[in-house]
């Protein structure tokens, strides 16, 4: 049995202002983002608009622009910004000694 947090790898394996994914069997992928100033966030890899892969969007400031129709989603809250309304599930993340840990329970939920 592992702990509350799942260790998914080194933060510097994620491109700056880019993302990587975590595959969840039987569920949505999780998109793990790294911002220009080195903060790490994770969201379900599914845009609240029409399901675009947020992991493939352009990351700027604390948001990502969805590659399909350019909605902007806040990385910290998963909320669509501006005129758009919608929300993507957020997976809590923490950094420890350069490793990225994501919340196990939320990951399970994403898989459910």
């Amino acid at each position: 049995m592992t702990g509350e947090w799942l260790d998914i790898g080194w933060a510097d394996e994620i491109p700056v202002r880019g993302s990587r994914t975590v595959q969840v069997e039987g569920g949505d992928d999780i998109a793990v983002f790294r911002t220009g100033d080195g903060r790490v966030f994770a969201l379900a890899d599914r845009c609240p608009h029409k399901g675009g892969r947020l992991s493939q969007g352009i990351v700027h400031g604390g948001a990502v622009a969805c590659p399909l129709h350019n909605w902007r989603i806040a990385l910290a809250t998963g909320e669509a910004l501006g005129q758009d309304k919608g929300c993507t599930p957020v997976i809590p993340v923490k950094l420890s000694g350069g490793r990225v840990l994501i919340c196990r329970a939320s990951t399970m939920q994403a898989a459910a």
Partner: protein
Amino acid sequence: MQHQSHPAAAFEREHLVVIGNGMAGCRAIEELIARDASRYRVTIFGAEPHVNYNRIMLSPVLAGEKSFDEIVINDRRWYAANGIELVTSDPVLAIDRAARTVTARSGRMVGYDRLLIATGSDPFIIPVPGKDLPGVITFRDMADVDHMLAAAGKGGDAVVIGGGLLGLEAAHGLTLRGMKVTVIHLMPTLMERQLDEAAGWLLKSALEARGQTILTQANTAEIVGTDAVEGVRLKDGTLIPASLVVMAVGIRPCTALARDAGLAVGRGIQVDDHMVTSDPSILAVGECVEHDGNVYGLVAPLWDMCRALADGLTDSHSGYRGSVTSTKLKVAGLDVFSAGDFSGTDGAEDIVLRDASRGIYKRVVVKDDRIVGAVLYGDTGDSGWYFDLLKRGEDIGAIRDMLIFGQAFASGGGVADPKAAVAALSDTAELCGCNGVSKGQVVACIEAGAHSLDAVRAGCKASASCGSCTGIVETLLATTLGDAVEAGPRTMCNCTSFGHDDVRREIVAQQMCSIPEVMQKLHWATPDGCSSCRPALNYYLLCALPGDYVDDQQSRFVNERMHANIQKDGTYSVVPRMWGGLTNPRELRAIADVVEKYDAPMVKVTGGQRLDIFGIKKEDLPAVWADLNAAGMVSGHAYGKSLRTVKTCVGSEWCRFGTQDSTGLGVKIERMTWGSWMPHKFKIAVSGCPRNCAEATIKDFGVVCVDSGYELSVGGNGGIKVRATDFLCKVATEVEAMHYCAAFIQLYREEARYLERTAPWIERVGVEYIRARIADDAEGRDALAARFHFAQQFLQDDPWAARAAGAEREQHAPMARFTPHDATKEMA
């Protein structure tokens, strides 16, 4: 030899033993003495041979700005006057909690009633081969500084590993001491924990201007040398010679002693709000402790800790609550300040001021009308004020508009209205520093009929260079004309007040060569742009600096990053190039094999006579490319703002009407133009006669072959608004047709706005202009074509090949996989 402390004295006063004669240990004692000088008898053990000195001043000592004597905090008289016994050069090696004694390296053992651990931090040494060679040192204490000074005395090359606060101070000192210094930093920007990208970029430029070599995104593989260090080798193979290597990659709380004694240790020695460890008679303070999950690496929090500690030791009860820290770089002449959280997430907003001519960058992050972070570069005069507002959580709603201009402006009531401030300026006041334009000249220009920002820029040059006075010029337009102001061309996006054309012009005029540099020099209002401006800037730089500009992948739309088209279900489609629309059994077989092997659900002939394979998974893309490459096929760039296809008809080779070899010419044109990045997608067609079977008159560049030569036409597209081409000119030979094509493409590449197709571009500038540049100006045409061919040297390599060979492999593979089976079992 063993030494037992004096029993009579112990009887009168409790004995407080301190391990560590550094900043926190001594400060704690100062605080204690200030409260109650007679309560404890104090003994301090120090590993170093010195009295208590100011460690943060080691950088100025290294730089030659201060001597050691000037950085001593407490000299021997202080210890004597307060009855403190100081033991130097004798580190404590063990604590016996049951017997309440400590034992030092010399064998000296003393008993304590209370023990204070203040051992600070150990520098982190990256575990690379060669790390133990003579000449590899850290930057932590006076001995390290002595070592560096000795090495610098011999001159030569130094490498500093780590571009953080400490590393940069070491690099600066060594540079001043005459060494040739290279800084190796793993991350893309310097001091990335404290500064954002823009400030990091400014810092890097300033340090380079001082003669240092700064290598970012550089990973140390090994330190080479036999008897002493000779150089550093990076993971990419680069070898940097060095006779001195300073490791400044980070620190770790020094906890071994406490851990051996069985105290609770996490990242640091765990303490409560009064700095008491898991053993009630042992306290700990400084960098070696962990409080509430936090460890600190700066002095300000230590002062707070020392106060709480002394309060606890003297029975008063205010405890430590954690600290907000700020950072300043002590490199002479470079003003850098950073505090709080400036990552701009969670509903926080950025207020950014960039003043390129003065080299200033300020960013204040505001959330719910409170400052949560600040980064200042170049002008840190207001750092104290911002930091104070931040720590106190002050409501800044009322001064928000003025906040970024600093304390004097924000609290100066009278000038709080920018219109009034501009109106108050005298006519002779210089508004535009770059072009030396006064307020009076701007007003005169407006009154003479310049009713828009662009007209003012054209008329008197104000705000036409760096643009920092744009806001003032706009205010003047508004106050002079009221509602008569004409809106200028739209700005590139909300991050800037500049339009596309201004940005392109300035990139060339000021020879800018990176996105952060453009953002700084042109006063971007956001820290790292948005999804509109970043791809545009990336393209403009790529176009302006062929061969030199390093493409920024993260500023490209997913299709260009993945070299395939993203489809609505998240899979990709792949289009290999088929030159001029021709193919052969080998290529068809390779495509058929890929379709089967990767279960592609659909293959389709595109409008541009190519085959499009749909439904490829992201992780399969590299293998698909490898298979197609193996059959000799390269990327069709069907995903990019780039040359897509050259459509052809069969022409004279087969067709009874054909006048020229349209297929052959199409193949040649495609071989010449493929790979070229453009402002938008670009299509070409060649038809063999005026029947125009290749539909050349609705393409960006069309050729219609006729008996006497080649009719060239431009600016067509079959998009939402169908537009037929404008006739450009007629030429006699294939070679000319290709030459004109190259010149036209380059003109489009250099002058159209990003995401502007040729049709709206030509409607905007007029077809006469295009004719004047391509058909009538032979010299200009040759120059354009030459620039095109020069750029093509760098652009014509197949992006699939590199990717198939493993470049940026991680873009395709998931970082981790999570299989919830075990977890489900646990839950059942």
